[in-house]
């Protein structure tokens, strides 16, 4: 009872501290609103304004028609270049694709001699290279067959492939981007809030003050966790409803309450992590470097940026120990696919286990180093 009271009072103190720190408040506000909006909107569609150039050695009606088939938003308006410039523009990275239409192309095509169109792709731009090439093949094929249809009959394809994207029928990038940005924000802010706040207390000498009071290390730590957790959970919920659902108009399939539960578990883990890092770093500069070292892999490898299943096995296994991985999995399932607790319970259990482990480790370390903090 006495413990609970202490934890409550200390937590309230943390909330007051944040409330009176305008820089931090502005930062949090920015991260949970504008940052999410701009990041989501800045992401182009998968294939967007891909720069393309043509080497037209045929100058026929057909070649003109093919070139006309490329237009925004998928492609930049195509530019015509000379054959000898082809290497140069690719080397300079001006264009991702250069299509070469050979001489006598139309004549050969009409005669059924199957001429060859050469597509050169700058494969260092992997993401554009893959999808762009598919689009290019399709556009060329359809332009040619349409053109030729006027001259000779063409049998229809007997089997049609109907593609249906579920959960995000238009494959809108910002649906995905906004929620992933929110997830990154949750991780970043909670680690900074919990960790940097502890370092700052250390620098201002207030930890020392706390330690001579009749409160225990565990009470201090739990109070930091619950107050940070509450603030970030609140910010996340508001951002989900206000920014993502209302402002960005992203439809949310699943139960928001279940998502908030996930956020709470994730925060339990990340705040413990932040405190742990603050006990390792001796000064703010060291904490800054350490934070980047931890934050970057957490954000880039949790499955929020590129699909998890494509990562090397070893990384996949290592990342299972990171709370973000499970958090991303559960959030995607809940928010996009409308999954319920019957589906995401393994992730919730994993989060709880990881969080408890982090908490115990951080508490042990906090207790051990607390006298050095003063």
């Amino acid at each position: 009872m006495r413990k609970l009271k202490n934890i409550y009072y200390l937590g309230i103190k943390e909330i007051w501290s944040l409330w009176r720190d305008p820089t931090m408040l502005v930062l949090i506000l920015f991260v949970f609103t504008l940052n999410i909006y701009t990041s989501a909107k800045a992401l182009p569609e998968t294939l967007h304004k891909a720069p393309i150039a043509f080497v037209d050695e045929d100058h026929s009606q057909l070649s003109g028609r093919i070139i006309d088939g490329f237009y925004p938003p998928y492609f930049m308006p195509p530019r015509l270049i000379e054959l000898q410039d082809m290497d140069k523009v690719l080397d300079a990275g001006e264009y991702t694709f250069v299509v070469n239409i050979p001489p006598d192309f139309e004549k050969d095509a009409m005669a059924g001699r199957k001429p060859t169109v050469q597509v050169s792709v700058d494969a260092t731009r992997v993401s554009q290279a893959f999808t762009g090439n598919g689009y290019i093949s399709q556009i060329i094929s359809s332009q040619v067959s349409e053109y030729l249809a006027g001259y000779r009959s063409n049998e229809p394809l007997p089997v049609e492939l109907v593609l249906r994207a579920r959960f995000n029928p238009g494959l809108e990038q910002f649906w995905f981007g906004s929620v992933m940005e929110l997830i990154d924000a949750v991780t970043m802010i909670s680690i900074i809030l919990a960790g940097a706040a502890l370092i700052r207390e250390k620098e201002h000498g207030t930890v020392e003050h706390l330690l001579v009071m009749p409160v225990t290390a565990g009470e201090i730590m739990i109070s930091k966790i619950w107050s940070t957790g509450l603030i970030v959970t609140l910010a996340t919920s508001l951002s989900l409803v206000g920014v993502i659902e209302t402002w960005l108009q992203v439809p949310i399939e699943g139960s928001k309450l279940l998502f908030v539960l996930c956020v709470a578990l994730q925060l339990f883990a990340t705040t413990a992590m932040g405190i742990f890092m603050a006990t390792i770093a001796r000064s703010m500069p060291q904490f800054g470097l350490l934070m980047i070292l931890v934050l970057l892999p957490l954000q880039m490898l949790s499955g929020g940026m590129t699909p998890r299943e494509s990562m090397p096995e070893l990384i996949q296994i290592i990342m299972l120990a990171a709370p973000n991985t499970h958090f991303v999995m559960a959030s995607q399932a809940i928010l996009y696919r409308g999954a319920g607790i019957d589906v995401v319970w393994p992730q919730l259990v994993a989060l709880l286990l990881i969080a408890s482990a982090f908490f115990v480790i951080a508490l042990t370390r906090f207790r051990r180093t607390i006298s050095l903090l003063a």
Partner: protein
Amino acid sequence: MNSVICASDLVVTYGQTQALDNISLDIPSGQMVGLIGPDGVGKSTLLSLIAGARAVSHGQLMVLQGDMRDKKHREKICSDIAYMPQGLGKNLYPTLSVEENLQFFAQLFGHNKAERRRRIDELTQATGLYRFLSRPAGKLSGGMKQKLGLCCALIHDPKLLILDEPTTGVDPLARSQFWQLIGRIRQQQPQMSVLVATAYMDEAQQFDYLIAMNAGQILATTTPDEMLVQTGTESLEAAFIHLLPQNLRANYKPVVVPPFNPQNEQDIAIAADGLTMKFGDFTAVDNVSFSIRRGEIFGFLGSNGCGKSTTMKMLTGLLPATAGRAWLFGNELDPDDVDTRKRVGYMSQAFSLYSELTVIQNLVLHARLFGVAEHAIAGRVDEMAQRFALTDVLHALPADLPLGIRQRLSLAVAMVHKPELLILDEPTSGVDPVARDNFWQLMVDLARNDHVTIFISTHFMNEASRCDRISLMHEGKVLISAEPEEIKQQKQTDSLEEAFIGFLQDATCHQDETVSEQNPVLTNSETQRSPGVSRFFSGRRMLSFAKRESLELLRDPIRLTMAFLGSMLLMVFIGYGITMDVEDLSFAVFDRDQSILSQNYSLNMSGSRYFIEHPQVHSYDELDQRMRSGELSLVIEIPPGFGRDLSKGLQVDVAAWIDGSMPSRAETIKGYVQGIHGSWLAQQVRQMNSGVSLAGAVNIDTRYRYNPDVVSLIAMVPAMMPMLMLMIPALLTALSVVREKELGSIVNLYVTPVKRLEFLLGKQLPYIFTSFISFFILVAMAILLFKVPVVGSFFTLSLTALVFILFATGFGLLASVFTKSQIAAILLSTIGTMIPAVQFAGMITPVSALEGAGKLIGEIHPVSYFLLVSRGVFSKGLGFEDLSFAIVPILISVPVVMYCAVLFLPKQER
């Protein structure tokens, strides 16, 4: 007699507070002038103005016959002024040795090597530091630090020596030695003017001339003797109080300490036996024993770093003792014993209230944490507010209150739970004499009326004499523990200070740190004045800053390791982890036909290397459920009658359900499915009727250039390079300037002849070097670990990397110059580098495909161009000729960012 300093109508305001309020004064040259007054009355502000460290905004200030607002004049007299800022070794570099510190300052003022050696040897011999040349400045005692600071100040023969509280926190022996030293220097160089600020009134007695200051105003300017005569007092302290405005000393009355009559000699509140504290091989507290009776005021006296605070921390349970035992109220000290803690109140040296909580919030929080019953809290808080006169400021934030009131609040907080023992660690340092005496009155009342035991540490002798008993501490040992009178008797002296010096001399007589009187301080003063200080860019000054910064970096191995190891780790993790190849996608077939043809179709699908087949789906519900859980990314639904209809030549639709929750992955799946479907069709058509070609009228021949297998690693590794080479170097330099701002050594930029560009470039150099090494490590990792060969011109890559590092470190400096705190600098440089590098530089999406502001950033930021060069050299086999178009923008960015950094770095404090 001409004047060395002449000021009129000087005004300095910080936000709401007026630090200097219309100051006008005239200081004659060749004199030792003392600036007296408590902390925070504007002494330091005035001195920093005179030293040229702070810009004159209002009023006139002439120093050494020139206007301090004139930049040319400041540059001219820079080397004639020596300034030692407040704080022990504030302008010294703690990780550097005595020798290195002196070398650094000597280099700045342009002495050659032989001259530097001679001066350093002479100065250190004269001050007794010669034996400690190789010791890091941070490990010197307070007195020695101040001597080193003095050496650093004297190394360039100044005409005006400015010392800001040089002896605060220094033990009395070191203090008297310090003044002897100054005295001898003045004998040899009588033309030198010395301006000293001090809070110790007793020191001021020996100065030629005094300026008494309070609240930004000058109370009096006169000689010490005259001041005593004018005020009709016996001591300068009393004289100062007499000089204060009426309203300030209205409720002042001298502290009277009633004699201590212990009710019971055996009633011991606190006892220590053989307490020892070791940090590594350094003994902070050595075998300290004492016992304090209930209701006693027990003083702990000693210089900074002598072990007072450490002893107190051990008694509060903050630090576990290495050896020895302690008892509180007869119970052996147990850090986990929460109940004993409730009987103790502690007030630490560093001000430790919650500055974000109001006065009343602070009081209530502490009352609650100490377990005061909820119904009693309001009354208790009220009582404390009354007693400590806080009623008017209950809703103010501590930061807005003057120091004296904050100290009272601290005491109120420490008292809110009515402890029986108060442990106070230097509670009165920095408080003006009137507030200090008021504070003592409160404590005396607590001790005598409420029988609270008070254990207090101080370095003010007059406070010590009010204690019932005191212990003199020096270098971790208690020299003597007795009543003040008894201590004076033992040494047969009139003052406690002299007695203390006597004990210190006994303790240190075998050490020869003491100054040999014969050694002249500066024999050479006439022989070789410092060479003219170059008004133009000086490579030597830049190098001396570079050398110093490198030494500091080398002595912070954690930062250095993180810089190297950090970029390596990130390269491995992200290089391996981030991949654009979408493979091993999970898919299942929902075959509602179950004919040979439909099975043939699904077989074709599962044969692809992109897909891994999962067990078949049997119903729409199952399809839904398994896709929701994320198990399946793709489901191929084959309609009933697929085989039959197809053989009849009827139109059939096959549905591909794709998980769209990750759009980029969905797009890739779409492409794969279409491809596989197409090839299946072609195959079928060939088998059914070999005549008609359905495969299209043209061939499309795709050539993946530079990366024929479209492997992500080849694309990602060159793309990682710019990101890492931007973020880590920027983060390293981002802390370098702001750290000096926080620690105070930035003052060396203000008062030495160093130019801003020399300062910045000097700081940048070591990090450029570090980052360039880091670059080669990363290239080696790319080649050896990731097997991504460099096919183009390695020279071009290295050259571009070097230029880019110049930009990245420059950007860090800019962030550092711009911000005030380290955390803000970290934040600014992280956001300022990570966002352009990851999102706008073309790492994943090419710049040309971006839109709006993102595109603009991508087009002007050098990181995009370094990315082009990196990919060009790594993957495309290009050389200098082909890439010079991308190197030029990076080259242009370097002077731009450096110019901005210089522009925003003030050469004076504002």
